[in-house]
């Protein structure tokens, strides 16, 4: 069943949608940031995701949780953007501009996590996307293959490569 905020937002209540933004922006932005390793692009894609969520809300029937629906929508937004950018995609190493990771969200073993975030950001795009979808977001490899439009073997190879590179970077 849709939550109160979801129901109200579906009826056009902007304050309710603002509340949904507050509740979910951290997850949406985290997905965008880890998949793209580019804070500015992640902000743009986060906006895309929420705009699309607003537009798609009338069709959300509550068969799944809103958070799951929004998560899947966000992943789609990021992957579509990646497909468009693929031709000019280069290895992005946005190490200097990862202040967002340190904006009070990372607590506890912060140093280790930031190192890991930086290492993920430094991965080649394909390997990073496969790794984030599988290991960070928890999608099975078969599902990742469907999302990326590639064979399961390709996902497996990308994840292997990503893990190997991460270990190399983290051991330096």
């Amino acid at each position: 069943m849709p939550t109160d905020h979801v129901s109200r937002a579906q009826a056009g209540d902007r304050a309710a949608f603002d509340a949904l933004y507050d509740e979910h922006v951290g997850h949406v932005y985290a997905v965008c940031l880890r998949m793209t390793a580019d804070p500015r692009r992640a902000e743009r894609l986060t906006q895309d995701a929420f705009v699309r969520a607003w537009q798609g809300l009338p069709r959300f029937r509550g068969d799944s949780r809103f958070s799951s629906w929004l998560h899947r929508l966000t992943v789609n937004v990021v992957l579509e953007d990646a497909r468009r950018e693929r031709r000019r995609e280069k290895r992005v190493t946005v190490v200097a501009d990862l202040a967002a990771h340190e904006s009070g969200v990372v607590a506890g073993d912060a140093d280790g996590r930031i190192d890991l975030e930086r290492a993920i950001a430094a991965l080649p795009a394909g390997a990073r996307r496969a790794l984030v979808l599988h290991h960070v977001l928890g999608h099975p490899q078969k599902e990742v293959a469907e999302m990326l439009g590639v064979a399961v073997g390709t996902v497996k190879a990308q994840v292997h490569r990503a893990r190997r590179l991460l270990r190399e970077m983290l051991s330096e």
Partner: protein
Amino acid sequence: MNEHPRDDVLQDLVSGSLDSGATSRIERHLEACPDCRAEVNALRSLVASLGDLPAAVLPGTDLRAGIWQRIDGEAATRPSAASPEDGSVASAALSTPPRLRFATGASRWPLATAALVLIAVTATVSIAIDRGISGRGEPADGAGGERAGATMRAAEARVESAARELEALLAEQTGMLAPATREVINNSLSAIDAAVAEARTALDGDPGNPMLSHMLMAAWEKKLGVLRAASQVPIGI
């Protein structure tokens, strides 16, 4: 197993993607091989760390203003009912304008007029509704509400006229659409018509209610959006 397993095999072990026979063989090897055991432990630790990363990372700035700006901008230029689904079908980017497929030449002008009418009417109605709301954001009554109601009626008449133009154009192009597509369009329009009627009835019963006015205009916007999408009107005409 005397030879060290390959790196990818150890990774498969950590992923749990090896069959039971291979898993048993590798585990027997690990019992006797501290190097491979250390390798597997390091991999498991890495995978656990990835899973433990914070689920939420806040952006450096509040993105809400930009989101609403885009929603309002696109509501005036793009159909919400034709917006991408959340499902598995890859859809066009929000920043990617739709391609013109059917509407060409002179037939674009009625559509351009309809789009401009929608933008102007939406702005007019928003102003009217806003003026009908008191400074505390509460619905107004009396003269303010009546003025908003009158403006609403006038605006609705203009939107209706724009919708009729688009419907006429769509009727000309219907033959170019697949039967299934026609059915989808007709179903969408029927649902939106019901929403328009419902909002109109509610507003008749409570003429000064700004929320109902917004809902009615949103329903009209949606109808024009579907009609525009079905007629393949490009953004920014």
